[in-house]
């Protein structure tokens, strides 16, 4: 059977028979549903899709997907994904991680898969807390956050996942929110279609240990003031009736009201395909409450993937040197022969 004759898969085809064990009301349910809804759009047969995760609430994700999957160890999903992708570049490989898994132990592994530009899709669920271990602060917890492990408030500067990704030379960087289901679905689709490492941060609500961490972006009234939807080629507008925008003042973005001599042509125009990552970086630095928070695709740049570069090297080596020959390899040293009759000949 060729792929063309395959019946189109549905969301149901991607639901495994395992009981989902996240807390009722967890943002993870929505991300799972959007993933299961989006995958049929890709036209990739189930057996060619693999989900790899590390440790944490989000990392239970692979168990619930009717695809191949591996629930590995803390922070190491990018490493496992790299090995798998090299063993079989045909596979569509997804890494599911969280702010704890991906940015604490996994910080090192994350930056290296990004700089290599493996053709793998990474989805980082950011709820700013360690949920599975019951509420300790994470690498993205806001400064001063009081948690079980920071009773007087955190004193360490949080990491901004998208800034980290850009600094690690990520070629696709995007952000969405668990409850923005249509937007999330579109972003996941874009991530899947990108050749190279796709890094998607999803703001996800932990309703047990950090409820409302993203309320300023999910509450219908508040989000009107605080959410900025990035669109390629369009000026940065937000606010009720798109009445506000972002203008550059030197290297600093500033919020402006449209009208009174300020028009859309004065605003910063989003270009996700710029080879230089500085503009995208600037967007990642826009944080609440000083700025509206952008969601959407920050950067999308097609460059050589690691597996293509490797395949290319192997091909060239084969062309230039021919297929490896074990006997030749064994004999690639100074040799001597001992004959039957008189020892050394």
């Amino acid at each position, binding site marked *: 059977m060729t792929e063309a004759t395959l019946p189109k898969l549905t969301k149901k085809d991607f639901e495994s028979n395992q009981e989902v064990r996240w807390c009722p009301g967890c943002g993870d349910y929505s991300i799972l549903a959007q993933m299961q809804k989006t995958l049929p759009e890709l036209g990739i*047969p*189930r057996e060619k899709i693999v989900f790899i995760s590390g440790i944490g609430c989000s990392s239970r994700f692979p*168990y619930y997907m009717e695809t191949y999957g*591996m629930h590995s160890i803390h922070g190491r999903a990018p*490493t496992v994904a790299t*090995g798998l992708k090299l063993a079989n570049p045909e596979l569509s490989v997804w890494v599911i991680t969280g702010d704890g898994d991906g940015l604490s132990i996994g910080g090192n592994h994350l930056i290296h898969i990004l700089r290599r530009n493996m053709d793998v899709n990474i989805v980082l669920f950011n709820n700013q807390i360690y949920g599975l271990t019951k509420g300790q602060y994470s690498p993205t917890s806001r400064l001063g956050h009081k948690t079980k492990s920071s009773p007087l408030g955190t004193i360490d500067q949080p990491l901004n996942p998208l800034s980290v990704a850009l600094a690690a030379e990520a070629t696709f960087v995007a952000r969405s929110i668990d409850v923005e289901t249509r937007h999330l679905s579109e972003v996941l689709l874009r991530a899947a279609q990108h050749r190279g490492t796709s890094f998607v941060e999803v703001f996800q609500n932990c309703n047990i240990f950090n409820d409302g961490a993203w309320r300023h972006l999910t509450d219908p009234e508040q989000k009107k003031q605080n959410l900025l939807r990035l669109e390629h080629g369009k000026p940065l507008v937000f606010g009720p009736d798109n009445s506000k925008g972002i203008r550059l003042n030197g290297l600093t973005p500033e919020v402006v009201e449209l009208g009174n001599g300020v028009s859309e042509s004065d605003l910063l125009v989003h270009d996700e395909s710029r080879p230089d990552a500085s503009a995208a970086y600037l967007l990642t630095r826009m944080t609440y409450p000083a700025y509206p928070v952008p969601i959407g695709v920050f950067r999308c740049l097609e460059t050589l993937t690691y597996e293509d570069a490797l395949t290319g090297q192997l091909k060239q080596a084969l062309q230039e040197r021919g297929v*490896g020959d074990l006997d030749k*390899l064994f004999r690639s040293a100074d040799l001597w022969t001992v004959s039957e009759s008189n*020892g050394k000949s």
Partner: protein
Amino acid sequence: MIETKPQELAFEELDSVIIRFSGDSGDGMQLTGTQFTNTSAVLGNDISTFPDFPAEIRAPAGTLAGVSGFQVNLANSDVFTPGDAPNVLVAMNPAALAANLADLEPGGILILNTDAFQAKNLKKAHFEGNPLEDGTLSKYNVISVPISTLNKAALADLTELSNKEVERTKNFFALGLTYFMYDRPLDTTLQWISHKFKNPVIAEANTRALKAGWNYGDTTEAFQHRYRIRPAQLPPGTYRKVTGNEALSLGLVTAARLAGKPLFLIGAAFGGAMAATASSGPGLELKMEAINLALVLELPMVIIDVQRGGPSTGLPTKTEQSDLLMAYFGRNGESPIPILAPCTPSDCFTMALEAFRLAVRSMTPVFVLSDGYLGNSSEPWKIPEASSLPRIVVKHPTEREGFQPYRREEETLARPWAIPGTPGLEHRIGGLGKAPLTGNVSYKPEDHLKMVTDRAEKVARLADAIEDQPVFGPSSGDLLVVGWGSTFGAIRTAVQQAQAAGLSVASTHIRYLNPFPHNLEGVLRSYKKILVPEMNMGQLAFLLRGRFGLDIISYPKVLGRPFTIGEIRTRIHEILAQGRKP
């Protein structure tokens, strides 16, 4: 030249000679030793080598910390070790002399680069006076050669070269001189020079240095003798020299090739690749969490530990066998892993293939314990024909009917190696406790017990797939010397010598450390006493006591250096003398 040449020197036939080249880290002693070894191997001698160098790439010149040595034992018969005490010591500076003199046999030949014996260098080597003049060396056969001066003169017209570049070739002068003494041809090294140095002036400089060393031996009257060591009677075949690290690498590539697979790690093993990783102790410690994941995922791979002195960063370039218990027990939970230990450099090739065979057979990670001594030392290797090597059979299921990710094969208890990309076999694996057959997450008491016992039994059953424990010497007697890993040569030779002295002693070398061969206990119980020499504080002895409840005499050594034959032979004599009535 011909006219001034002194009378032809007489050749003295030797059965074997042990030479140690020693100098500063930057003096090229590893290269010199390797060249001498290659030339001797090609000449047909049996060889065994021991490189011994500091972890610092270039410690301060002239200091004891910077001394780098390379010992080679060459013989006309089988040799199993680089030898205990060198017969010849080449010392390029006072520090090299100070660090090695105690090892040189009395009356041994001492070749010294007298140019380096300046006050500054003597002080760095902590000499009070000048050993060339104060009688320190009176019991040795000292050959004083102003190597730097002579070498400089030989290269005088190569004006393109800096003083530093000229000085850097002096090791080849020393090499040429030893080639003359031991009647070795120059061609192997000359060929190497022409391949190695793209710059024709550098190539010419090294060539000249080498020939100048030879000619110095030929034209001076420094020597009373030249020596010859006839080729050894090795089994017929084509040979090359191989170090343990080279043999392991060749073995890994061969295994991957024989199975038609590329090499990578856990993710790659999930994808169906032949996975392997190699490190020394601290690196393995770092990887142990991932190794335990591989164990519970039941994916095949080979994990190589080239052991060194520890704990922590320890002695990066010095040998030890102190990771055995880490390999056995150094993971959380009940987590048995098969452990193999090659015993000679060429055995590393064999055991790399064995490791893959067992890993694939039982779907498990397999440890291979090498060590710094085994990894860096070399011996002749009879090259196999690739077509004669056993294939490694790899099966990836495709049949949907009855597929379960953890359905075990009856004989081996291996689970199926179903790989992503196979239609209909989609499944999830992970580090959590799991139910038998499905592999679904389960914390049920009976499921946990079943998975723990199945994994243990799976490893235990590998004993059905390995050879019986062989014994060297009588099948019962007063003493059995038990070793593992790189101590093979010293133990075998010491036992040989003790047997020749009429003692009732045998040896056995354990290459399969987990599981042990079925007959091992029977072998151990056939002797009155058991001696276990190992380069740790008694780790195998601990295992044998615990496993078999036997009384074991442990012989630990943690000096960052291998056992000498003499040490083990002496211990054998001591133990057997204790048992005898006065």
